[in-house]
């Protein structure tokens, strides 16, 4: 029943909100209240649905097949994340959306997007999966449009990638249905086990390629950062946190359930094709390249959007190891990244709400004006950089450990390089927003209101809490591993007790906390401090007054950018993308020029067609 409600509530919410926004121009308050109640109900239903794991409900008949929906361990995990993040986004938007904004269908599409995502994770056969997948892609497109002026063209870029993904998946489903005569996961798995190598590769590519596009894996990642960053900031948080990860859900399901371990082993033993190596290489590139692209962004939202691409690489690599540690790391990293990216973007949104910009070159020195946003951002970037005691440390630790133990030194190196890039760029983020010189125009900036603060507080608590007690989440991750057929991780409340590695976050955090305490004491009793005004400053022997900008706030890392920037801001992938577009345009031009407008030519076509047809008919015998 709750599983059913999990689909019905968002559907009803979508229809009601859409009708409401169609007939009422004002009444944002009503819309907000309705959305708040609706998403609270969805969260409650999602929590209560835990008791229904394993049961199946049947949807409508389609093409002679009864659609199946149901909860599994992994889909409950995702359902909680989806509904939880949506709820937080809605609470945040209670404060963040202003009357008279240009978002008439904001809540309607948010409900619809929830329906799509919940539908995908609840579906228990590939037909239902595909239908909900398409629905999800299209609602994302419409949701992305609810943003800035630029949003419409970047949403178009997303749409083209998404529809290519959909069509590949479409081909895969047609192919698997033809081969197995069924849409069910288990029937397909047993058919796939009997495939020869070539067919198996085809099936794997058709199923996994769309998932990799959706999870923005290198080199299919270029749609994501521009599309997400030009959406409304609350939506950017929501999308970066969970939307793309549905692709990773698909990777997990298709790898472990639909293709299955037998097929995976077969695919990873080939001489000329090794699936695991391919996915891991993709993951490695995804960890490094987008992270360094993020480094050179001058817009906070864009910077975070590029990190969303980059962090996906860690999750992908973790899943692809197919080991106990790696899969746990990958699945847990989905959760941890979700918490701190939402936290960071909410803090950025809080700054944007007051200052009206997310441009890192024009912000600065807001630490005293918006202290809560500052602390929130600090918690978030510590998590993102993978430093204890935040939860990001645990998930990254699991992934590193699995890579080192699995004998993938180059991947581990890539992961470390990626983390280095992350640390560099999050430093830029916090420095350029909160540290340094406060521009005069922000002198009367205030902290944001209760509804915008509440999600920040909650997320800070979660980031720290699941960092100190990772077992809260890892316990469930272990259950997912059982249901996927991976060896489960031995988990305690405070960390990991596996033979492959041991981690006690209570100890780690205590040591970390104690060190911080000592440092603080040294800071208190240490040398003389003198507090000066922010314009009491000099550089190269010259005093800097308020007309001169504190130089580090402007074009941070400009030297790096000068050296490396070209490679990351105009990469071969971008040129390849442009080349493909040019190719399609040229093909289109060629096709158009068949229709010359000359009547004689057209008549010649008709006559030629008759002759050609006779020739073909003759030849066909």
């Amino acid at each position, binding site marked *: 029943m709750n599983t059913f409600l999990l689909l019905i509530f968002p559907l009803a919410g979508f229809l009601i909100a859409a009708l409401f926004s169609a007939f009422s121009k004002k009444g944002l308050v009503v819309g907000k209240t309705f959305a708040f109640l609706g998403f609270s109900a969805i969260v409650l239903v999602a929590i209560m649905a835990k008791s229904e794991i394993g049961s199946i409900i049947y949807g409508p008949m389609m093409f002679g097949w009864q659609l199946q929906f149901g909860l599994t361990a992994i889909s409950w995990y995702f359902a909680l994340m989806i509904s939880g993040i949506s709820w937080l986004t809605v609470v945040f938007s209670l404060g963040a959306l202003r009357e008279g904004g240009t978002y008439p269908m904001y809540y309607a599409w948010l409900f619809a997007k929830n329906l799509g995502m919940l539908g995908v994770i609840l579906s228990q056969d590939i037909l239902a999966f595909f239908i909900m997948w398409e629905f999800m892609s299209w609602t994302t497109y419409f949701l992305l449009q609810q943003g800035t002026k630029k949003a419409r063209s970047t949403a178009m870029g997303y749409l083209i990638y998404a529809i290519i993904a959909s069509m590949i998946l479409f081909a895969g489903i047609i192919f698997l249905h033809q081969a197995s005569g069924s849409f069910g996961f288990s029937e397909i798995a047993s058919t796939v086990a009997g495939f020869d190598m070539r067919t198996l590769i085809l099936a794997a590519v058709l199923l996994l390629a769309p998932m990799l596009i959706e999870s923005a894996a290198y080199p299919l990642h270029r749609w994501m950062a521009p599309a997400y960053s030009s959406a409304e900031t609350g939506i950017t948080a929501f999308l970066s946190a969970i939307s793309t990860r549905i692709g990773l859900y698909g990777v997990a399901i298709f790898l472990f359930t639909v293709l299955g371990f037998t097929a995976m082993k077969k695919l990873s033993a080939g001489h000329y094709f090794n699936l695991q190596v391919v996915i891991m290489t993709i993951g490695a590139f995804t960890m490094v390249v987008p992270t360094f692209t993020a480094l050179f962004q001058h817009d906070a939202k864009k910077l975070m959007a590029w990190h969303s691409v980059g962090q996906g690489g860690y999750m992908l690599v973790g899943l692809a190891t197919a080991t106990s540690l790696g899969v746990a790391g990958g699945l847990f990293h989905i959760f941890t990244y979700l918490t701190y990216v939402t936290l960071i973007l909410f803090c950025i949104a809080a700054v944007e709400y007051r200052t009206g910009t997310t441009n890192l070159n024009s912000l600065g020195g807001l630490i005293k004006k918006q202290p809560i946003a500052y602390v929130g951002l600090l918690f978030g970037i510590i998590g993102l950089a993978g430093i204890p005691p935040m939860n990001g440390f645990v998930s990254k630790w699991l992934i590193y450990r699995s890579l080192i133990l699995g004998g993938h030194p180059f991947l581990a190196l890539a992961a470390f390089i990626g983390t280095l890039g992350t640390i560099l760029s999050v430093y830029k983020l916090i420095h350029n927003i909160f540290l340094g010189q406060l521009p005069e125009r922000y002198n009367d900036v205030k902290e944001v209101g209760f509804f915008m603060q509440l999600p920040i507080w909650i997320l800070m608590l979660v980031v720290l809490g699941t960092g100190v007690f990772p077992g809260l989440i890892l316990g469930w991750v272990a259950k997912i591993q059982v249901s996927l057929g991976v060896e489960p991780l031995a988990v305690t409340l405070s960390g990991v007790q596996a033979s492959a590695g041991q981690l006690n976050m209570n100890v780690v955090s205590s040591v970390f906390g104690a060190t911080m305490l000592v440092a603080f004491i040294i800071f208190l009793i240490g040398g003389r401090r003198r507090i000066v005004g922010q314009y009491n400053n000099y550089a190269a022997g010259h005093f800097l007054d308020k007309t001169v900008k504190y130089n580090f706030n402007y074009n941070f890392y400009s030297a790096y950018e000068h050296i490396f920037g070209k490679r990351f801001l105009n990469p071969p992938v971008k040129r390849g993308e442009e080349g493909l577009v040019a190719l399609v345009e040229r093909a289109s031009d060629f096709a*158009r020029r068949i229709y*010359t*407008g000359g009547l*004689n030519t057209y008549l010649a076509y008709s006559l030629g067609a008759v002759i050609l047809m006779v020739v073909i008919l003759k030849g066909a015998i």
Partner: protein
Amino acid sequence: MTVPQILYVSAFLLILIGLYSLLTQRNMIRMIIGLNIADLGVNLFLVTIGFVDNGSAPIFRAQAAAGPMVDPVPQALVLTSIVIGFGVTALALTLVMRLFVTHGSIDTARIRGLKW
């Protein structure tokens, strides 16, 4: 050569001439004339199908005609086809007239406002 053979060959030649002028002429009026020539060839072809050597006209009389009758069906077809051809030609010429007013030309190479 028998009579039907001669007729078939000339029908074929007429169609070819018509198609040739449709393909090569750029003057719309000439193209329409070409169409008419081809139409003529087709009509001749249809009539020839019903041709019976020494056949009499297929007219229903009180007493049966002596000897074979030619097949009346193709003749009916040709009549219909001629009427249709007339209608189409009339419409085509009207359109050419209007085209000459709007475009100032009846050269197909110049009437290429709609392309690509």
